[in-house]
């Protein structure tokens, strides 16, 4: 039979359904026979559920953005036009074209 240490080390995988059939059976057998590990497992699952729901529910997911922050972001975007790959190619080509001219001029 598994020890408590081994059983508790498998709880994350048990919760995620990541144990193979034999490991799952072994772990569940331990939990069924060990009241303390069973209590621990129940409170472990409750902890995960509480964390998920306490942070995601009623957490202002649909709250509007502060108007000042919207303005700030739009101002920044306005002042930084998005560079497009085509511009990079133009810059590169103009650099390549300029090199012989520069070499000729420096001659």
């Amino acid at each position, binding site marked *: 039979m598994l020890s408590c240490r081994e059983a508790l080390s498998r709880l994350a995988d048990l919760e995620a359904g990541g144990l193979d059939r034999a490991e799952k059976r072994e772990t569940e057998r331990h939990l069924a026979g060990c*009241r*303390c590990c069973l209590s621990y497992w129940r409170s472990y699952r409750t902890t995960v559920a509480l964390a998920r729901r306490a942070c995601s*529910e009623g*957490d202002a*997911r649909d709250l509007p953005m502060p108007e000042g922050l*919207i303005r700030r972001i739009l101002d920044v975007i306005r002042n930084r036009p998005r560079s497009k*790959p085509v511009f990079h190619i133009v810059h590169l080509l103009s650099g390549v074209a300029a090199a012989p001219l520069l070499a000729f001029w420096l001659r």
Partner: protein
Amino acid sequence: MTPDIRSEEWAAERDLVARLRGGDERAFERLVREQGGRLLSVARRFLRDEEEARDAVQECFLSAYRALDRFDQGSRLSTWLHRIVINACLMRLRSRRRKPEDPIEDLLPKFQADGHQVNHPTPEWEGSAETLLARSQTRSIVRQAIDRLPESYRAVLLLRDIEELSTEEAAKSLGVTENAVKIRLHRARQALRGLLEPHFRRTAPC
């Protein structure tokens, strides 16, 4: 004939992306208004500082604006922005001065040499998550407990359990192996359980 809402949503999103790529400022404003509140909630959770959270959201939209040409049309804009804001938050957490983290060993179960639990009996809790969440203070107790976790554990718990990133995605975001994420998540949950136990255990042991 019933209209296919899902395909209509996709079409609307493709249209929005095309307008964004074309530099349509009103489309960008719509994106900021629709997605910003949710992204700000994510940034607040990670950074626990209002100004830093707002800066992270601004960085997120700026990065998205610059990278619009690389946006994969097969994924959702909201998912893409979610990943970008998380990365912006993680960058900020990394750049904060690192304080030595408090050990969490006291919050983990203890074992005898033969592998059996030391702290017999483990107390039962007062109820399921649903029962406990019906109480007005539960959310605040849980959030405060998460905030008390050392940063490296808090980050992995937020990524996996709250933001629902896969182990692979969390590992990439944190720059660690998938196995390290699994181990850290398990320890983070155990430590959180230890912090919550005094609030939720039954007075009488099991």
